[in-house]
């Protein structure tokens, strides 16, 4: 299989998932509204103590982003599994891993990227400084693809299992912990004057590892689900 046809398969998978999402906008919008509402509840519940809000902001934004991503994981493979498209993908001349990578990329474009772009606006509710907002966006930009990649493994493992929605959170949330620690930690490190470089580098390292292994693990899990 040539490099060009691998690339064609990858972009076909991305474009297909984006097209399907455009036809069912509600799926994408629920994730975003969830993120907006959850983050807005905190300032309302805690009250206008700016010092406190500023301190909890990175953690709240990251945890909400994490939960919002997890909510959207179910739709990653479930519909394709039920209507037989996944079977056809497994029988495609394009390796399944490439198509899976395309689907994960589309998932990030529809969940992680909008969350990253919304975060600075929502951060204003917590009185975050412009510099912290920039670090926050950087950490989410590197961290949300990790969430999509790891989440895809969980979604593939729970495919066809009854009550898979709850199971996926039990499987995936513990694996999200390192990304959460270094993502939220980046902002705190920057505020305390340590610099966010180390945290962001570690996040980027996680992205590199997940980007390499997650599509492979997801593919293996999908093949088992299809048997």
């Amino acid at each position, binding site marked *: *299989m040539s490099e060009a*046809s691998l690339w*064609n*398969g990858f972009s*076909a*998978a991305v*474009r*297909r998932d984006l*097209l*399907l999402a455009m*036809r*069912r906008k509600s799926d994408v919008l629920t994730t975003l509204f969830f993120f907006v509402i959850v983050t807005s509840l905190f300032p309302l519940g805690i009250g206008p103590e700016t010092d406190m809000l500023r301190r909890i902001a990175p953690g709240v934004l990251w945890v909400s982003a994490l939960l919002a991503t997890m909510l959207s994981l179910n739709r990653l493979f479930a519909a394709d599994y*039920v*209507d*037989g*498209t996944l*079977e*056809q*993908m*497994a*029988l*495609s*001349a*394009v*390796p399944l891993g490439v*198509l899976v990578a395309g689907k994960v990329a589309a998932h990030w474009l529809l969940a992680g990227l909008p969350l990253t772009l919304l975060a600075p606006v929502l951060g204003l509710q917590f009185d975050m400084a412009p510099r912290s907002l920039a670090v926050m966006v950087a950490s989410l930009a590197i961290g949300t693809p990790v969430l999509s990649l790891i989440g895809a493994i969980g979604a593939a493992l729970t495919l066809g299992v009854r009550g898979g929605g709850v199971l996926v959170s039990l499987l995936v949330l513990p694996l999200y912990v390192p990304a959460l620690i270094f993502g939220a930690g980046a902002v705190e490190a920057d505020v305390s004057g340590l610099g966010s470089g180390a945290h962001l580098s570690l996040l980027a390292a996680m992205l590199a590892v997940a980007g390499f292994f997650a599509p492979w693990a997801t593919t293996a899990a999908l093949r088992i689900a*299809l*048997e």
Partner: protein
Amino acid sequence: MLEADNLECVRGDRSLFRDLSFRVDGGQCLLVSGLNGSGKTSLLRILCGLLAPMHGTVRWRGQPIRALGDAYRSELSYLGHLSAVKEELSAAENVEVASALAGRSVPAQAARSALAEAGLRRREDLPVRVLSQGQKRRVALARLLLGGSTLWLLDEPVTALDADAVKWLAGEIDRHVARGGVAVLTSHQDLPLATAPLQTLRLRA
């Protein structure tokens, strides 16, 4: 071309079939028959590589399909019980998108003419959601025609099809086999196939 060698399939703790061997060459068609639950679908899934047999090997052009991998899959079209059509997309989009995912991109015009051939003229742009079961099946069959693959594995292809469509499909299978292709199909209905070298494989439950 397609050889099965001592296949055994176990589902749960039940052995569906064992020591199953056959060979289908180019220009031949194999009809798999048997009662419900006798393992027809499992056999087809083994032949396309979705399911691993307990024992035995499937060979394509003399090579085990596990070793061939993508090279085998690029010569194969499988139509299962599930039609793999997306309700949100139109019939034409379905065929184009599915072909692109299968690694055989087709021009939009080819997708439309295949749909017209499958009896969906002027319905190409309707969302599949509003089509009937039989029409959805025709969308899946249009995708099959466009694939241009050598090996067709069709699991109950005539489900939900009307008499005209069954006749049309039988004609397409005949043409495919006459071109030197291989077809393996399961069906409870009689297909009016004209192909002379029709082998029948009967699975016993």
